[in-house]
């Protein structure tokens, strides 16, 4: 059973990767969303705010080519899913706990791991739900946020 093979991946971690939170990347992210809050691009406005400078919108941790889909732990897991016929893979959702704001010019370290794998019977057959947890630490070693994402594998 594919679930047995997948559960062996629980606890697998990726090597931590560094994410530099550049001002330009914050601006492009906010612009893509259509979010015109000046905290994300207006230095003068942001410097007078409680943050003392530009911050990133919650959920943005610096641009990186390393997304959930290119995580080593996840690629391994997706390989098992696809081989077992669960080739329809969708993003199922995300949850966060936020502890500190992310400031422009922060350097974050992201550590993703496979948290859980479960099966669920849905309308269109069995769905495999894979949970990934990523912790983000800033340059001071403080935990700024924890994100949990769900990938769903479906048989096509």
């Amino acid at each position, binding site marked *: 059973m594919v679930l047995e093979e997948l559960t062996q991946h629980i606890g697998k971690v990726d090597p931590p990767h560094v994410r530099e939170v550049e001002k330009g990347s914050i601006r492009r992210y906010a612009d893509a969303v259509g979010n015109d809050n000046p905290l994300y691009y207006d230095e003068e406005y942001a410097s007078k705010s409680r943050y003392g400078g530009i911050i990133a919108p919650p959920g943005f941790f610096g641009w*990186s080519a390393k997304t959930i889909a290119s995580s080593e732990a996840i690629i391994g897991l997706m390989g098992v899913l696809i081989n077992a016929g669960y080739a329809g893979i*969708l993003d199922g959702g995300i949850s966060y706990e936020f502890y500190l704001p992310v400031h422009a010019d922060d350097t974050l370290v992201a550590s993703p791991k496979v948290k859980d794998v479960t099966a669920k019977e849905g309308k269109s057959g069995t769905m495999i739900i894979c949970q990934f947890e990523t912790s983000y630490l800033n340059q001071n070693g403080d935990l700024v946020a924890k994100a949990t994402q769900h990938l769903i594998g479906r048989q096509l």
Partner: protein
Amino acid sequence: MAKEQICWEDVEVGTELPPLPKIADSLMLVKWAGGSGDFNPHHYEDAFGKSQGTGGTIVHGLLKHAWLIQLVTNWMGDEGFMKKFSCQYRGIDHPRLMKTMNEPQDGETWLCKGKVTNKYVDGDEHCLDLEIGVENGEGGITTPGTATVVLPSRAK
């Protein structure tokens, strides 16, 4: 922008957030791919989307998550802090195609909505729980979620 800051005392259970309208078009999806680093072809190749059983290109779940975060952060103001956020991508949304270089064709408009479901003090934090969601053009919630925010209090 610097609008008037909302305080915890201004809000009651049942208070609704001002709805935030959004139009997902091809242009926004391309900008989001670049801004977020998510280059999954499911979001720009119609044939690939069809092969994945979703009927064509679909709006990124994480783009809808960013809309919902904008809904909440706009409302809570610069002095508010988002402690928790979660959303689930339950329904598929398809983007509008372009009519001109900048303008989408006629079609669906999405509404990000939210309301306060709980109001409480936790330690020295004045908290609110919110129920949020992205509503599609037919009135269905494709992306339900929740958030917890801390607002400033006049008592302090």
